[in-house]
């Protein structure tokens, strides 16, 4: 037993940390010599460390349980979702009676009930609701999200938080993700190692079907479903917002897609496929989430205690054929728009129009941007919003970029989905 005061330790019964303490009481052969075995490290872990978990879903539930069992006692969790029945095959802190309730709250209550003496503070809302001061209070952040956009925001926020004068401002970010039997876990030291944005080109390109295929030459059941959701819904339902969680909406899309498939002799439109396509459903199972969350929490534990070296910096797992994993160092990108500092070099024809450049940016796998606004140091080139400025800059779309930006000049790209601005250095061919 450590020598903690009775008030904080009344739930720490003798023997509670028998397992964990074996690696905290003495170093291993590969442990950093700076590791302070014994009470010091236990006190930090159990009484000082404050950790933030982003997401209380498939990964989040696992992460919270692991952190609590390893001895973290001040845990915060953010999630904006409520519990759905399709979560119950893996999000093991939730029961049928919890369907409809906020994930963050239910998860926090469950952990506190099951693991005595652990405080979990939930926030039912968006990560973007919180400011730098909020994020400054944590020692570590673990992300278990399925949204690329949210991860980019969190990553950029933590990179921007780094103040070279203040070592406390560097918050290690541990990120996990899964898809079916595959997943990855990584450690990001903002500004020091490769960040989330540095590796954006490793993501699978989302399947996008050309509008002309959907409208004129459907061949696959997916084409019929896209026709129903992208073209027919707005045409028939007008301004009514599509809710992909509403079974009536899915039912409508399914019947419209099925009718079109019948007309074109296309087989394979089902309810499940309709839902999969419109919600962009990624298969998810408890076991893969357990592996990746455990890997993330193990890194958090090692960083918080120095009991062993932490991952440098990427662990990838493929479980479809045997157990294949690959641990490697992902390289930092000098032209990373978040942590690189250098502008992204872009070379294209002097004849390319502003509209052409926008299309090119939307297509680029390593920046993944939806509706970019462009400006140069001298002028606004094209702005997506507000409407007045959009209208005022719209004539530029047809102009050649070379009319507006000199060779070697810079263009700043912004978008509502990006928490940072991207600088491009333009060279004409």
């Amino acid at each position, binding site marked *: 037993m450590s020598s903690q005061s009775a008030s904080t330790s009344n739930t720490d019964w003798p023997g509670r940390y028998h397992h964990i303490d074996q690696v905290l009481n003495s170093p291993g052969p590969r442990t950093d010599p700076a590791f302070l075995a014994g009470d010091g490290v236990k006190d930090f872990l159990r009484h000082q460390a404050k950790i933030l978990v982003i997401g209380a879903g498939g990964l989040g539930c696992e992460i919270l349980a692991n952190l609590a*069992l390893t001895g973290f006692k001040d845990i915060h969790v953010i999630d904006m979702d409520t519990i759905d029945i399709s979560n119950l095959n893996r999000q093991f802190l939730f029961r049928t009676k919890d369907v409809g309730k906020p994930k963050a709250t239910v998860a926090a209550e469950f952990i506190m009930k099951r693991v005595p003496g652990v405080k979990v503070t939930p926030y039912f809302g968006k990560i973007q609701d919180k400011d730098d001061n909020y994020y400054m209070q944590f020692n570590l952040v673990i992300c278990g999200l399925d949204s690329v956009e949210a991860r980019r925001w969190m990553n950029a926020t933590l990179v921007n938080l780094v103040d070279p004068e203040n070592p406390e401002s560097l918050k290690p970010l541990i990120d996990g993700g899964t898809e079916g039997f595959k997943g990855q876990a990584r450690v990001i030291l903002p500004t020091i190692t490769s960040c989330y944005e540095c590796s954006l080109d490793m993501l699978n390109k989302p399947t996008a079907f050309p509008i002309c295929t959907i409208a004129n030459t459907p061949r696959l059941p997916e084409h019929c479903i896209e026709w129903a959701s992208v073209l027919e819904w707005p045409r028939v339902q007008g301004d009514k917002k599509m809710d992909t969680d509403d079974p009536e909406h899915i039912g409508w899309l399914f019947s419209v897609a099925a009718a079109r498939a019948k007309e074109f002799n296309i087989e394979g439109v*089902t309810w*499940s496929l309709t839902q999969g396509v419109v919600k962009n459903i990624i298969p998810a199972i408890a076991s893969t989430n357990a592996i990746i969350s455990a890997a993330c929490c*193990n890194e958090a534990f090692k960083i918080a205690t120095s009991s062993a070296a932490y991952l440098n910096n990427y662990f990838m797992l493929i479980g479809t054929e*045997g157990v294949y994993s690959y641990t490697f160092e992902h390289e930092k990108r000098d032209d990373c728009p978040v942590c690189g500092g250098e502008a992204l070099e872009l070379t294209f024809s002097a004849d390319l129009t502003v509209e052409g450049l926008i299309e090119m940016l939307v297509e680029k796998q390593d920046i993944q941007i939806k509706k970019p606004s462009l400006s140069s140091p001298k002028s606004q080139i094209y702005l997506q919003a507000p409407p007045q400025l959009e209208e005022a800059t719209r004539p530029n779309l047809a102009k050649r970029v070379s009319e507006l930006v000199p060779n070697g000049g810079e263009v700043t790209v912004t978008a509502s989905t990006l928490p940072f601005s991207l600088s491009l250095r333009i060279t004409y061919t």
Partner: protein
Amino acid sequence: MAESLNIENATVTIATDAQPDNKTRRYDRQLRLWAATGQSALENSRILVISGSATSTSILKNLVLPGIGHFTILDNEKVSPEDAGNNFFLEGQSSIGKSRAEEAVRLLAELNDSVESKADTSNLEDILEKNSSYLTSFTIVIAHNLDPKLLDRLSTLLWSDVSHPTLVVVRSAGFLAEFFIQFHEHPIIESHSETAPSLRLDKAFPALLDYSLSLDFETMDPTDHTHVPYVIILVRALEDWKKSHEGKPPQTYLEKKAFKEGVLAMKIKFDEENFDEAESQAYRCWTETTVPSEIASLFQYPALSSLSPSSPPFFHLLAALQKFTLEPPYTLPLTSTLPDMKANTTSYIHLQKLYKARAEEEKERFKSFLTVPVDDSIVDTFVKNAHGLKVLRGRKWGALDADPTALANAISTSSKQVAIHLSLSALTALIMKQPGVAPTIEALTQEAQSLLPPGSEFPEEFSDAVGEVARAPTADLPNTAALLGGLVAQEVIKMITKQYVPIESYCVVDLVETWTGII
């Protein structure tokens, strides 16, 4: 017959067309991986887990959630204060002193109402002695950090008959772990292989060839020209090429280049993407479709030569497949799944119909080689997945450690994995010899040495591994337990569903450097 078929069709229609029921909704994210067949295999499985340790409950959690049929925890221990601190499926201090099996089963069962569960507080040694048929009544038996003498008897019992359950042996200490799956053979139809089956453009079936020859590319309506699928373009281009090249496909680099140029020259407008696609897929014309070597090697399997009516259907199917491949066109049966390609609806659907009709014909021919009746749905799945078939052959637990030469050889190919394996084997042996005594590095090293041939060198990573084991010999760390829980459950799911490909040997885990490896 006709009537029952109609009823079946109607049921399928209801199941896929209506809003899914609660069970389908609950399992939606996993059904997309292993479908209803995999789910029903899980629901029919019975799992026995020996000990209610943190690792054991972590494994079970990931099997109860997806909906196995039944699980039993066999454990005669009471919850200790140490257990209550690292196991999520115990309720802290209030569980201390109660039966570990009962507490863990109660809290795991909450995860899924449709799973049947049982806590068994009897003693494994007694069961091995008096009631071994109880142990063999399960689908899979999983044992974590089990006493080596009992493990030896258990593994021998389960190995003694091919119909006995698969055994999963899990060992862990601190940041290090390994697990092993003991099974005789494991045939897989749905390996979910990522390689697509051949479209057989080099051996175009008659209807496909006739259709491509019937098209007049030069006088065709220009809109139709832009929508001819690349499959048709290539079959036609290849046929034309062969006419002027003694019936041979392009062979040299220059010929292949000329062929591709020929394909592009068929364009009537520069932006015909279907011809660009044909050019990029042109390699299919000179890649001969044969029986893939991995599939051909399955035909050597001993079970095929001693086939009897009672042999598993898989081997009857395999034998029929072999006969099928011995006749022209000397390939696997055609599959009807076409990739998407530039085409309009009519031409694509027409092509799809040609493939479907031919695939049906070949399936009928395949069935004519079957010597026993096999369920139609299994034949369908088999033919559809013929290019990804696998048969894994396992070993008995302990076979590696009983063979010093094999162990020494393994060092040269998987040095760091064997380092951990040796350290964990040494730990198991020491705990048996001197229960309750903290193992020293020296004692562990001596034990490990006795497993290797005299005078052999340890792998260079051995001192790191053995040091880590000595540091935390009895630590069932929550993160290690959770990671093992996920890895083992993934393999168990693959074994039960007979989908995807499980490991055949040891999987080793190092959570200091965060890697997994196979011996």
